[in-house]
């Protein structure tokens, strides 16, 4: 059997609470600039949240914005920006050979809550329920809006994978490219979760909603006084191609997808299982043909919950202890938890380290929790790494879904 085609990343478009391009996002990560706002959440008052401020009208008509969803706009922004970044000549591309694969944590809560609120103003008479509800809430909505906006006629769907979704979107795309189902894929993760009070209330009642008098300090993974998740919106979408195709068109290659794994805890709906997480990382390494020491940066999923951070640190220690050249960081301390976009955005924030050699830190650590001590953890200040050839990106989610995606610098054996 011939080896499967190699898959590379040739473009990225994103919106994060602290940046609407990779360059801006990266600069803020290296400068230690978090950006968390305080917003009014229906029924819950003011809450810290990561809010994106991209200009949706750059790529959408106002009617499209009105009829679509917030996450549709996020997706279109990211996909269009990724296309521009990739250098693909869009007009000469066969768009039936383009696929869109977007990871989501949840979808439809925002619109459903809005309509329940809407009809409550009319004595709950359902004749006031919007006819836009179904196209807005079908699970493929974010990916479907991208295809309509860009005239893509190949496959599109979303991958529901809780907070592991960003990695899952990329993995799905890599597999579809390897199978020859498509020639170009737009893939990543997206989220509009700050617009649903249910997510806030659910975490609050689970004792897992982060807070701090200063919003920018509310998300503080690994700190002894961390108190939960800061919910954020955002998106990161990549252009993926087979290596041969990318080389043939002279594309700039940002990274190569080296290996991945998705597995399941099968133990608890919300409590993570470090044994399965470690297994997930190890299997991703095996598939990439790498040893732990070949990974120079581990991007953690840690969300600043009391138990989750400890469990992940345990798993990371188990796999990477004895790897002095491996650094560990976290991006949620800057932007909160972007849910379906988290894994994809966190990978994006670290990708430039292949070029600039820096590792951004996890910030807001005033008192490092001893149980979260991990060799190589980069705390509060960036470090210059001797070498960054490969990144392992962790992304985990409820119902015990774990994902680990490894990308490597192109051209490294």
């Amino acid at each position, binding site marked *: 059997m011939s080896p499967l085609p190699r898959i590379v990343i040739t473009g990225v478009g994103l919106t994060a609470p602290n940046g609407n391009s990779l360059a801006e996002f990266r600069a803020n990560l290296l400068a230690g600039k978090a950006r968390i706002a305080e917003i009014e959440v229906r029924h819950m008052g003011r809450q810290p949240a990561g809010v994106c401020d991209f200009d949706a009208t750059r790529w959408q008509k106002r*009617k499209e914005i009105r*009829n679509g969803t917030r996450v549709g706009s996020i997706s279109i922004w990211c996909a269009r920006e990724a296309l521009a970044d990739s250098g693909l000549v869009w007009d000469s591309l066969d768009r039936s050979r383009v696929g869109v694969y977007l990871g989501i944590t949840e979808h439809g809560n925002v619109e459903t809550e809005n309509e329940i609120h809407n009809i409550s103003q009319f004595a709950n008479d359902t004749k*006031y329920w919007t006819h*836009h509800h179904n196209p807005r809430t079908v699970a493929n909505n974010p990916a479907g809006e991208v295809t309509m906006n860009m005239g893509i006629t190949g496959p599109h769907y979303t991958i529901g994978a809780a907070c592991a979704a960003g990695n899952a979107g990329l993995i799905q795309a890599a597999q579809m490219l390897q199978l020859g189902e498509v020639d170009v894929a737009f893939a990543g993760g997206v989220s509009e979760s700050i617009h649903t009070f249910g997510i806030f209330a659910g975490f609050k009642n689970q004792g897992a909603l982060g807070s701090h008098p200063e919003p920018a300090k509310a998300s503080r993974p690994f700190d002894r006084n961390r108190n939960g998740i800061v919910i954020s919106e955002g998106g990161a979408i990549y252009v993926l191609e087979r290596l041969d195709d990318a080389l043939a068109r002279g594309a700039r290659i940002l990274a190569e997808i080296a290996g991945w794994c998705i597995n399941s805890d099968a133990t608890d709906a919300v409590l993570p299982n470090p044994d399965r997480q470690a297994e997930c990382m190890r299997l991703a390494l095996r598939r990439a043909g790498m040893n732990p020491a070949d990974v120079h940066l581990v991007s953690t999923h840690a969300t600043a919950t009391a138990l989750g951070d400890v469990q992940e640190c345990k798993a990371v220690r188990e796999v990477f202890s004895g790897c002095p050249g491996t650094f560990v960081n976290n991006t949620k301390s800057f932007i909160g938890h972007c849910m379906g976009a988290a894994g994809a955005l966190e990978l994006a924030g670290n990708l430039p380290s292949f070029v600039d050699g820096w590792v951004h830190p996890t910030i807001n650590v005033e008192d490092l929790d001893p149980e979260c001590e991990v060799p190589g953890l980069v705390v509060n200040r960036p470090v210059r790494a001797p070498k960054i050839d490969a990144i392992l990106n962790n992304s985990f989610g409820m119902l015990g879904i774990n994902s680990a995606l490894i990308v490597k610098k192109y051209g490294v054996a």
Partner: protein
Amino acid sequence: MTKEDIKKVVLDIISDIAPDEDLSSVKPEVRLRDQLSLDSMDFLDIVMELRKKHGIEVPEADYVQLASLDSCADYLLPKFQAKAGK
């Protein structure tokens, strides 16, 4: 409420649901679909906004009456008057 008032009501609704359209020179006698980019979901929006903002019901069988500004005015005038007279 006059027919001109009703045309303005309908145009105000259209300006919300089709914000990219230039409504400065809409011909009242010409079908809205023939001069603006409106689809069936947009007409459902017009029906919904008449219901929500003005308490006016347009049964499905009568949707055809919303084809142009003139036909809107002819059809909706008695409904607005009946509502005002209540």
